[in-house]
């Protein structure tokens, strides 16, 4: 070792060979990532399959992309850790198999607001609408920004087939029928949701607004595990 690092030792020699030096550096940086990543891809036991976990519906997918657009992940995690307080506060801890269709993953790194991994079904649809329009109306003292534009902006669904085709090619099991009927399916789910919101005294005609997609996505979150028992 001392021969290697002493002044005019062997290290001095490779300091005169930029190419060798660079190759050695690349090898050093590739080892760690490779050793850690390969088992995650190759060994199925690392991500046990949960059969009740299914891909997002077209409307939920649209809502998820709006969730990404608004940067919700900056303040809300979707990853419940296996601690007593988190189970108490948020519900069952998050399983690896629950996010197999999440591209990208949205686990987050900061809880400026509460975790949302199991927010689905926790509040009525109308609560979410009011909360997005004015967070303080449902949660006094909240520091969350209002997202009132979600109630007025028209929901864009025409890119759904392209998005679902892309996801299908990456491995999400959407059928051709799913993709062909995606816009229709999304509209139907949106109208259903909007009817429910209006029936409960909420705003009328939200069926073609972005908010319904976001609500559909939020109401889906974390519900796959209990789907069978419902």
């Amino acid at each position, binding site marked *: 070792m001392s021969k290697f690092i002493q002044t005019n030792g062997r290290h001095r020699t490779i300091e005169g060979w930029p190419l060798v030096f660079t190759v050695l550096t690349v090898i050093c940086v590739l080892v760690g990532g490779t050793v*850690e990543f390969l088992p995650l891809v190759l060994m199925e036991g690392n991500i046990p399959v949960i059969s009740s976990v299914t891909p997002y519906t077209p409307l939920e997918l649209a809502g998820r992309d709006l969730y990404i657009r608004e940067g919700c992940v900056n303040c809300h995690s979707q990853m419940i850790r296996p601690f007593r307080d988190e189970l*108490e506060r948020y519900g069952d801890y998050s399983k*690896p198999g629950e996010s197999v269709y999440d*591209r990208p993953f949205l686990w987050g790194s900061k809880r400026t607001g509460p975790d949302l991994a199991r927010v689905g079904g926790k509040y009525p649809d109308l609560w979410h609408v009011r909360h997005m329009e004015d967070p303080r109306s449902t949660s*006094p003292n909240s520091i969350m920004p209002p997202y009132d534009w979600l109630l007025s902006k028209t929901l864009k669904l025409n890119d759904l087939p392209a998005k679902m085709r892309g996801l299908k090619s990456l491995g999400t099991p959407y059928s051709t029928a799913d993709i062909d009927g995606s816009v229709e399916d999304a509209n139907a789910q949106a109208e259903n949701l909007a009817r429910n919101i209006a029936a409960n005294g909420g705003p009328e005609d939200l069926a073609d607004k972005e908010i319904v997609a976001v609500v559909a996505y939020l109401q889906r979150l974390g519900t796959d595990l209990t789907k069978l028992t419902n």
Partner: protein
Amino acid sequence: MMIVRFDDQIVRYFVIATAIWGFVGMLVGALIALQLPFWQANLGEYLSFGRLRPLHTNAVIFAFAGNAIFGAIYYSTQRLTKARMFSDLMSRFHFWGWQFIIVSAAITLPLGLTTGKEYAELEWPIDVLIAVVWVVFAVNFFLTLKIRREKHMYVALWFYIATIVTVAVLHIGNSLALPVGLFKSYPLFAGVQDAFVQWWYGHNAVAFFLTTPFLGLMYYFLPKAAERPVFSYRLSIVHFWSIVFLYIWAGPHHLAYTAVPEWAVTLGMVFSIMLWMPSWGGMINGLFTLRGAWHKLRDSVVLKMYVIGITFYGMSTFEGPLLSVKTVNALSHYTDWTVGHAHAGALGWNGFMIFGMIYWLLPRLWNTKLWSERMANAHFWVGTIGMLLYVMALYSAGVTQGLMWRAFDDAGHLVYPDFMETVIQIVPMYWVRLVGGLLYLTGMIMLGINMIMTIRTAKEKPSDAAISVAA
């Protein structure tokens, strides 16, 4: 004998860009710091917290720190190789390409065009552009090494090599995605695997964008400013290779107790703890370079800034391994402690190393004296106090909230079942953090004024340095 003239103009470009984007990035930082305790500062769709936070992080990391390390690399590489950069054209393509990328980020992020992956939010067309510009930068750099007139590469160059190749690997690896529209793509990996790749990237962006190039910068500019040789050649060898090898493994510590397999997180934690020593190797090599020269701190604002910078490098690289320990992470994760830690590194280490370099370069690049030493000294104090206020506020907020989340009463119920209670508790700390951030921004403005006045009061047109070498 022949004369080799360095390309110092490109360094002037990068230094000016550093100051401009530093100001912009920190201004956005101050705005989002205000938005947390004062939601009314969310100014509609395009200027709400969720869209501006990635703009802030991208601006300070890739625009402020990015332009600074490019400036440092172009300045020092030419001198260490005794050669002009291989291609002026490539240097200019690098500069303007990078500025174009930054402007694209500043437009697309407020529009909500984002991948949603932390520190890698830019969508695929911009990612492609980043890869192209980076490759041109790499080719220019390595061809300059090829035409060097100095046989051995000095330690700063080792760190630049590590930076250039690893950032390329990380950027490409984490950006593997399938485009499904002009500004929309889905990543190749999903869920657990995507999380792993993201933090392999995220952690090593800290390592190879905010650490290794800055160590290279330190190894060149600190001995110059102190007029002392580096403390230990052997230590530089040992800590260089350890850092390059160990850092990559540490990524999964960002995912402790998540759905990522426990063995990966434990591995990440163990390597994070091992990283402590080589990191301190860098700190020791920096601080000990000042042996016998500490009296120079009295008169040199540059050295003062380096000492704060290197000291905070030591603090953050102690804190990093600490936070990677699972039991500590259980408390700190998801809280403002993480944000405080990031800023101890960013404001303390990166910021002050950049400021020190700029104050050292200004008179040399423009053949003049620094316009105001006093203002630079004031910057040092305002920046230091601001940074300390900032990190103290967030440490306090983070620990407080972490403890409140997990508090149980004697009957076995959560003491604070309403999340809101834990938010209200830390809002005052958000105000203190804003004050700290504004002080730091004030220092940045002082640097800007000093820079403008130094350039304006320079008597002659700036000329590029030249050396004579054997023909």
